[in-house]
């Protein structure tokens, strides 16, 4: 089967890889680029564990072909922390907002996208924004609190 040459930027780094036309961006991140922080929980866009941003837009990487990422800028969980953790990452640890941690990368990527659009969301806004990120461990309570606390800190820092 003919593979497609894809040139893209991931977490600021230029990358190239060959993708089967049927492979998703998620497949490419995990299997071609060794970026396994992005998770597959369903493969059908129902769980959000594979959340990444593409040119700044939050998407499920399982619902996008690798070939479609050509020329785009992709950001994954691996690119979220600089020298220091992003406030969301720190607050998730402090608030015990994760148990098994499998949904955590997707939720952090999604929450970061929310706070970039809306620095002061209500609990309800956070809950609906994150409705596509399933968590089976926490009941979401501590996740919402962690996002609020991170948002407050980021507003203060701004």
């Amino acid at each position, binding site marked *: 089967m003919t593979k497609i040459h894809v040139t893209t930027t991931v977490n600021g780094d230029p990358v190239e890889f060959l993708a089967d036309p049927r492979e998703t961006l998620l497949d490419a991140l*995990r299997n071609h680029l060794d970026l*396994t922080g992005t*998770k597959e929980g369903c493969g*059908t866009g129902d769980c959000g564990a594979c959340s990444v941003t593409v040119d700044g837009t939050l998407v499920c990487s399982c619902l996008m072909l690798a070939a479609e990422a050509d020329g785009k800028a992709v950001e994954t*969980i691996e690119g979220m922390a600089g020298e220091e*953790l992003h406030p969301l990452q720190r607050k998730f640890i402090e608030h015990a907002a994760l148990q098994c*941690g499998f949904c955590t990368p997707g939720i952090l990527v999604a929450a970061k996208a929310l706070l970039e659009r809306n620095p002061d969301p209500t609990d309800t806004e956070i809950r609906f924004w994150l409705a596509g990120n399933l968590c089976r461990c*926490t009941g979401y309570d*501590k996740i919402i609190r962690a996002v609020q606390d991170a948002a407050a800190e980021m507003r203060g820092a701004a």
Partner: protein
Amino acid sequence: MARDEIKTGYKLIGTRPNRPDGLDKVTGRARYGADFSLPGMLWAAVVRSPHAHARIKKIDMSKAMALAGVKAVITRADLPTGLTGEDLNLQDNTLAGDKALYDGHAVAAVAATSALVAQDAARLIEVEYEILPHVIDVDAAMAPQAPVIREGVADYSVPEGMHPNVSRYIEFGHGDVEAGFAAADIVREQTYKTEATHQGYIEPHACVGQMGEDGRGEMWVCTQGHWYIRRMCASVLGIEAANLRVTPSEIGGGFGGKTTIFMEPLALALSKKAGGRPVKLVMTRSEVLRATGPTASASMDVKLGMTSDGTITAGQIYFRMQGGAFPGMSPIGEALPCAFACYDIPALRHEAVEVIANRPKAAAYRAPGSPMAAFAVESLVDEMCRELKLDPIEVRLKNGARNGSKSSYGPVYNVIGLQETLEAAKAHPNYQIPLGPNQGRGVASGFWFNHGGETSVSLAVGEDGTATVSVGTPDIGGSRASLALMVAECLGIAYENVRVNIVETGALGVNEPTHGSRATFASGKAAVAAARQAIAEMCRRAAADWGIDPEAVEWKDGAAHPAGPNAGKFPPMTIGEIGAKMGSTGGPISGHHEVTAEGVGASFGTHVVDVEVDPETGRTTVLRYLVVQDAGTAIHPAYVEGQYQGGAAQGIGWALNEEYVYGPDGRLQNAAFLDYRIPVASDLPMIDTVIVEVPNPGHPYGVRGVGETGITPPLPAIAAAVAGATGARIRSLPLSPPKVLAAIKDARKG
């Protein structure tokens, strides 16, 4: 049995430090089942039956074998024969034999050079089926006309004359039930049903397996218990346990569903057939829902007698449960003793049958059996409270089990906290908030035994006075943090100076999985014992250095001290000083503890929920939710709260929307998160928690397990709240909007 004296005034226990694995988990570095790869690795795919019950007449693999990149194809013919009992059941479930027993049952597997090639090859495997009659519903499966799914499933317990699909039978009780009912002012009897639900962990099952032609193998796998994986894979494949080394990955949720094998032997068998190349096998979500263990579905008759002042005089239950196409998988043995565990009732009769049906082999799910039992019993208690206009908490306080009560299933409760949870719920502001139109409040209590189990822990003191703890219970919800807290408390060192590792099967004695709410209890108990062993050795080293008797040395604040003025005057010798010199004072210092842990403390909780029901659509909104539960001692309160909240959320899902939906063809219709509807963030309110602490005398720090009880009360509590909001009592779960709307209309008709 010797009891540890319960201490209070801890330095570290009860604090909320950051979990040691947090950094890896927020940065994407934590490695889960599917995140591991090896050089030369192949990818596997599984061919699954599209039929609920079918004879496998022929499997043609020729087209698949001819596809470029395909390295191995296996069917049941590639597995050893002659297995019996549960080993045979495990093998039958790993790959179907003569018959496919449920929609999704594995029939063949293929390994190839990429995931896509493996999937293409799987589609090229042609299976010829003869479709057989099937049965799905628990009551239908034991009806006279039900098709016999498998012969000979009944074990010793099944009395003669029952349907061949009946596989187990239990009956027990105490007291004179008929006299109890005669003494009651009202006696009520109802039938309740719950549908099968899935644990719904977000991480699909995944493993990498490698096995050479010599039958030696390795596996990397997401599991709650890697020794179970080792034993079961060895049995299914006919190899020796010692020849399989299993390393657990980080685990993306389990809730009981990852305490057994489903597809792991396939990776090993494919690897062996492919010349020893490692094989990665990752389930899709659809495979997880179709072919891994959901919980049982249940049909339950309950009868209770109550006097007008709310005293329960007698109870009787008859439960019917199916746990899939294999015997022994439904939790009847747990559901029955859980059913009345919250009560002290003079006369009780429990009876249950297990039946097999054309559904996937059930696995444990958080407090197995207890949620269904609670739905039946607590719902009827609530119905009778409403009929008699009695407060549901007062009735539970009056009848509830307390210290010294003889439990419904035999033992006497030693020190338990049910009454304390009821008092805390009654006093909580949530119980006083006035309700608006179409709103209702529900209360229910729940129980779980908790479990000890086989446990092996090792602890080593480092040259710098830090400690490494090796445990065999995979960390699902923060147990590394709680174990580190307990060990640090015991050694008198900083939390950050204790590292807890989950180690592979070669590094410790056999450990049971992280199940039964046992990780913090049993691994904790063993870790503390190992730490005390190390402390004793460190005291000996100090004594030798000081030239005094080891008995004259005591350990406190992370250092050896002379035990008193008579012991001599020596400055304290810290763990760091002892560790630095240990090479010249006798060698490495470590502690081990191996035990089948006893002394579990029973767990009780009480929940209060307020809901609002849209009377025009039957949709239920959870307005507020309160979990009160006895933790014994909350080692890391944030993760105790997390267990309470997570359990409640799963119970809410079970109550409102989660269910296995089968078509008339016996195929699962909702094998995706789209239609298997677990709660999403916008479905839930904040979940309030109250941690009651009635320390368990069977644990050095008073720990009870906290993981399971929380899923139990939501089922009846929400049904009670919906009844309060609508006047309609619904006795089957889930409380899906069509069902609620129909019940509201029926209630209006009177």
